[in-house]
């Protein structure tokens, strides 16, 4: 039995062994509740404080600007629903390619008197300037545009979008879950440009599942999603998940440390991957735009994505046919639809997302397997090279 | 809650704990605070004929900082005249014991205890 090759790092990442080592004590002898005043509790509190510093340092924020949550979904919900609670219903504008945990809360607001505007994207997956200006002209209250898309990896120019939103009087938020750890994120600079809050997740950067954060300008007023006890400055109650928070902090430290190296390594690997894909006649989505260095989203003519990823899995390569969270949904990706990709091609979409631990052999092996699989699916005898 | 070394020292080894006999010459008592608030301080001073505080004793129901504050003032008032004792300010107590902001009320209570004891003394000696 050979170990399958994991090429789905945008869904979740394996934990960095160093992160696990930091977490272990907090799953055994260091078990205190951080609200307790005895030594067990105080030790937990110190560990959380340290992790808060590490997270803050990784994104150029101050530790008091970090609100720990159970993950990225909660942080996005906290911003959309929590900020909306402070305003009279108005317009909430989100890009058409947002993750469901931004889109669904925005839709929920729309059921309670708000108006939802979906900001359109162009064929390469970038927010359309004209559409953005038109939406801003309507004076939205809240605007959320993701820093990097989870399916295509396409980056949005948040630093230019935010000042325009601020001029229009809107509170701007960016979901940086996918961007974090893959490209530099500087909250201080973004905040100066008009970004009030951004969302992070631990398990996308070699940390554990179960921890995330909303990094926020303290002038931003938020109604908590979860009340009871007043943890996290009253913005998020509930006993802190010390082990996961410690892991998140450690993951941030290591992610920041290796950012430059991974960025180059991954884009080299991705380059090789995409060369191979193009030679097979693949269509690469969003490749004309600036993208995360690790993500390739492609479609092969007359090949169904679901079927293909199933075959690839059996052959030992773990990739995705859509966003992990919505992959139970047989509908073609809403991201590709927003980009105007025709449904036939969209149904063929396969996402490869590289990460720490992937190497040349993985990529070459993947390409070879893909060629064989496609040949098989086309009903031809595989050509053995 | 992390306590300063000095608070811990006074808490572990409180100075001048106890009470004077009620009828003893020159003894005055100041009792401040309330059980409902979580602090009650009893400060007693023994004043000599020359108006100098010869001795002081305390009992305190309260947190470690309250105990330390009252223990400290028993040391500080000794050898002072009653008027000099009144010059002791809560800020000096708080500074000496490095009290955190949430414990400042303990030092205020200690200052109040001095005032109450001196007032009691003056009341007894002007009659």
């Amino acid at each position: 039995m050979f170990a399958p090759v994991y090429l789905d790092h945008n869904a979740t990442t394996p934990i960095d062994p160093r992160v696990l080592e930091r977490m272990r004590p907090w799953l055994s002898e260091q078990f205190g509740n951080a609200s307790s005043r005895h030594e067990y509790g105080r030790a937990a509190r110190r560990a959380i404080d340290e992790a808060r510093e590490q997270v803050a340092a990784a994104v150029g924020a101050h530790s008091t600007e970090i609100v720990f949550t159970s993950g990225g979904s909660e942080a996005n919900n906290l911003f959309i629903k929590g900020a909306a609670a402070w305003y009279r219903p108005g317009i909430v504008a989100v890009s058409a390619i947002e993750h469901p945990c931004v889109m669904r809360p925005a839709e929920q607001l729309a059921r309670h008197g708000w108006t939802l505007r979906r900001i359109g994207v162009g064929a390469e997956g970038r927010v359309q300037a004209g559409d953005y200006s038109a939406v801003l002209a309507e004076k939205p209250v809240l605007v959320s545009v993701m820093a990097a898309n989870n399916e295509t990896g396409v980056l949005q120019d948040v630093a230019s979008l935010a000042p325009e939103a601020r001029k229009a009087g809107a509170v701007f938020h960016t979901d940086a879950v996918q961007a974090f750890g893959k490209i530099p994120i500087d909250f201080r600079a973004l905040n100066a440009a008009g970004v009030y809050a951004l969302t992070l997740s631990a398990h996308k950067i070699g940390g554990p599942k179960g921890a995330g954060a909303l990094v926020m300008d303290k002038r931003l007023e938020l109604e908590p999603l979860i009340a009871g006890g007043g943890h996290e400055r009253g913005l998020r109650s509930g006993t802190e998940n010390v082990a996961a928070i410690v892991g998140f902090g450690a993951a941030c430290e290591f992610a920041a440390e290796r950012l430059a190296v991974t960025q180059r390594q991954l884009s080299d690997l991705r380059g090789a991957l995409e060369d191979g894909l193009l030679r097979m006649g693949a269509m690469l989505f969003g490749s004309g735009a600036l993208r995360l260095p690790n993500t390739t989203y492609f479609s092969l003519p007359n090949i169904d994505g679901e079927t293909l990823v199933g075959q690839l899995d059996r052959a030992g390569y773990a990739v995705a046919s859509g966003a992990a969270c919505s992959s139970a949904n047989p509908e073609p990706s809403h991201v590709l639809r927003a980009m105007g990709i025709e449904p036939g091609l969209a149904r063929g979409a396969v996402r490869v997302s590289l990460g720490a631990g992937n190497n040349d052999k993985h990529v070459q092996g993947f390409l070879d397997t893909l060629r064989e699989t496609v040949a098989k699916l086309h009903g031809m005898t595989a050509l053995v090279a | 809650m992390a306590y300063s070394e000095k608070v811990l020292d006074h808490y572990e080894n409180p100075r001048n704990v106890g009470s004077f006999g009620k009828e003893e010459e020159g003894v005055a008592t100041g009792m401040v605070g309330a059980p409902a608030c979580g602090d009650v301080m009893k400060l007693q001073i023994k004043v000599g004929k020359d108006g100098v505080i010869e001795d002081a004793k305390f009992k305190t129901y309260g947190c470690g900082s309250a105990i330390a504050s009252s223990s400290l003032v028993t040391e500080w008032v000794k050898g002072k005249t009653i008027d000099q004792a009144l010059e002791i300010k809560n800020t000096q107590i708080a500074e000496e014991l490095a009290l955190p902001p949430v414990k400042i009320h303990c030092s205020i209570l200690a200052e109040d205890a001095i005032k109450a004891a001196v007032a009691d003394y003056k009341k007894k000696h002007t009659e």
Partner: protein
Amino acid sequence: MLKLPIYLDYSATTPVDPRVAEKMIPYLVEKFGNPASRSHAFGWEAEAAVEEAREEVARLVNADPKEIVWTSGATESDNLAIKGAVHFYSSKGKHVITVKTEHKAVLDTCRELERQGFEVTYLDVQENGLIDLDTFKAALRHDTILVSVMFVNNEIGVIQPIEEIGEICREKGIIFHVDAAQATGKVDIDLGKLKVDLMSFSAHKTYGPKGIGALYVRRKPRVRLESQMHGGGHERGFRSGTLPTHQIVGMGEAFRIAREEMAVENKRIGALRDRLLKGLSDIDHVFVNGDLEHRIPHNLNVSFAYVEGESMLMAIKDLAVSSGSACTSASLEPSYVLRALGRDDELAHSSIRFTLGRFNTEEEVDYAIKLLREKIGKLRELSPLWEMVQEGVDLNTVQWAAH
């Protein structure tokens, strides 16, 4: 050799049982898949583990696994249950009943509902901490849509009459939510019998990890909720967000151990608690807070009159205990739970909560008794209140100079 400080604060949180930690680790290492990934074995493996854990949680409380929704903990479960149900059923009424001694997760959520225009009755409890059923019945209104009562109180450990309250609620068609964070592994919970519609669980109070909990949502008769966290539609739309597989696996294992061992364990812990109580009972002016009979065997909450709680904690720093609940102990307010029992503020300020658990020993309890006896004596020597009482002064007649 005793390891100090001795942990006697199992209601604040419990250590992760080593068996639980062992089961969790592989899901942090090689089995790291996202349970929502449907396209590869990493995802399926994680999903299978999540479903196995769901069965374990359901088995402890005799529920159907389909009735278990994962959350980040009991606080989130309480928020989801109360806000989710009240918002869903708001067309049927606007009145909610809860109890003054509930956890903040319930009370703060109810306060939020009040700000939104709902009306909340906060029931008084009797001196023993238990709800009086007649008082409860009298509080019911035609527009009552939800009742929320905790199974076991976190500070005093008393067990509320959940079965009786459930019967009344079901008869009147009112949704009944129970916060069982402190109950799992300590009292038998049979959701096949109890007429409870929603029940909150926490892993870290039952030797599982922090950051994971669950909400039981009854299917027959079906209870509906408005989701509080929206997104990828995880947990059948009740709660979105990537499932933390390792934590879920930990909760499942913790609940399995609880089911298999609670009968024996509770006897042992009860004997330790009784030993502690016996060791303190001949000290003057020591009061047990809350009913001793309708109470989990793990809890002993005592007021040492005329000794202030925080100085007591300092004196017994070799014991990790709490005064008031862990969530509120950063404030100087006396415990609102003890106040609700009608304890005066002085006794509320003087209370210490001992909660025993799986890893306590007789030797530890004996050490605790010895230390407590010594320190109470010392602090009472320091206490002007104790002195006055010894002199025969009735403290209630004293005019205190409020500050």
